[in-house]
């Protein structure tokens, strides 16, 4: 059975460093300097923009100031998401050519690499289903969104799972275009998303969801996840990315 590295490396109060690590891992995996890896992590109040999004159009900066919300841009496409302590992030980095995702086709990657999270959520009692293009839904409501890329010799997929997020803040800090809401026939962000807590009808710790997703990944892909740490090289890359990219407003805000 194949073994993948499992890392729980996070900087809860430093979303810029979290995003730097998020890029350092797939770079190392692609270069053969690190094994295939699954990472779990949290951010405190943060908007994470897709790499093609305009900060000026998507972000309500006044609401961010009032709620202490930071804005950071990721290196993958897709839409803006709101992270807080009730949001669990996971990322899967597989060396390009891996048998699970042999085709260089992003839609296939989203489908295949969402299966572990779907299986994990179902194991917890959430009726989760993958919904193309890049969502996991429960009866039409989004509980998780994913993004990804095929880059640096790596197939990369990451997603955020709304475990117990504050949906009221989410609705304030993001300017969701009317076109996007109209397309889904719902009136607001809060009404088209849900949380694991709401679906289960009880409080649930992100740690328990993380453990469920670990089991879901192991079962779905027939792999074993083994606790590991970042290499010195990955940490050094992350620090460099922090200094040159993710801590800079030129990267985060000027698109």
């Amino acid at each position: 059975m194949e073994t993948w590295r499992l890392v729980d490396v996070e900087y809860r109060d430093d979303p810029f460093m979290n995003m730097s690590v998020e890029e350092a891992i797939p770079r190392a995996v692609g270069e053969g300097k690190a094994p295939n890896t699954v990472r779990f992590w949290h951010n405190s109040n943060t908007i994470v923009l897709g790499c093609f999004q305009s900060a000026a159009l998507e972000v309500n900066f006044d609401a961010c100031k009032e709620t202490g919300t930071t804005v950071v841009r990721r290196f993958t496409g897709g839409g803006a998401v709101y992270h807080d302590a009730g949001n669990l992030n996971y990322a899967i980095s597989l060396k390009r050519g891996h048998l699970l995702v042999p085709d260089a086709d992003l839609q296939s990657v989203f489908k295949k690499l969402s299966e572990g999270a779907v299986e994990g959520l179902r194991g917890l009692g959430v009726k989760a289903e993958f919904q193309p293009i890049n969502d996991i839904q429960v009866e039409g409501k989004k509980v998780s969104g994913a993004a990804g890329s095929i880059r640096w010799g790596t197939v990369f997929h990451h997603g955020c799972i709304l475990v117990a997020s504050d949906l009221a803040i989410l609705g304030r800090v993001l300017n969701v275009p009317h076109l996007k809401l109209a397309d889904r026939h719902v009136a607001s962000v809060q009404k088209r998303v849900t949380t694991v807590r709401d679906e289960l009808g009880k409080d649930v710790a992100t740690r328990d969801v993380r453990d469920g997703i670990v089991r879901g990944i192991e079962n779905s892909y027939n792999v074993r996840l083994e606790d590991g740490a970042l290499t010195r090289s990955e940490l050094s890359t992350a620090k460099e990315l922090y200094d040159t990219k993710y801590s800079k407003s030129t990267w985060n805000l000027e698109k």
Partner: protein
Amino acid sequence: MSGVTLLSADYKAPGGKLLRVRLRETGDRIDSVKISGDFFLIPEDSLPKLEKMLEDVPLKEKELKLLVDRFFRGTSAQALGVAPDDFVKAILAAKSGGPEC
């Protein structure tokens, strides 16, 4: 000499993602264009190349389509959530939408 007009449009691809176009038009040609949105495009750094290629192209469907097709063939870029034609439609929507309010 023609003046510069700022045009904008938000265009939702059918069943897909949003393209948000902000462009400067001079004499029925694209002076410069910024495309943003929640779509996927790999390699990610190819988007600025498309924006650059669109400069000085007439705001006409045929010319835009030729250019966008050339971009996707030449770069082997892969879009998800939007088709190549959606870039053309989004830009034309900015033109028909009139000046930015």
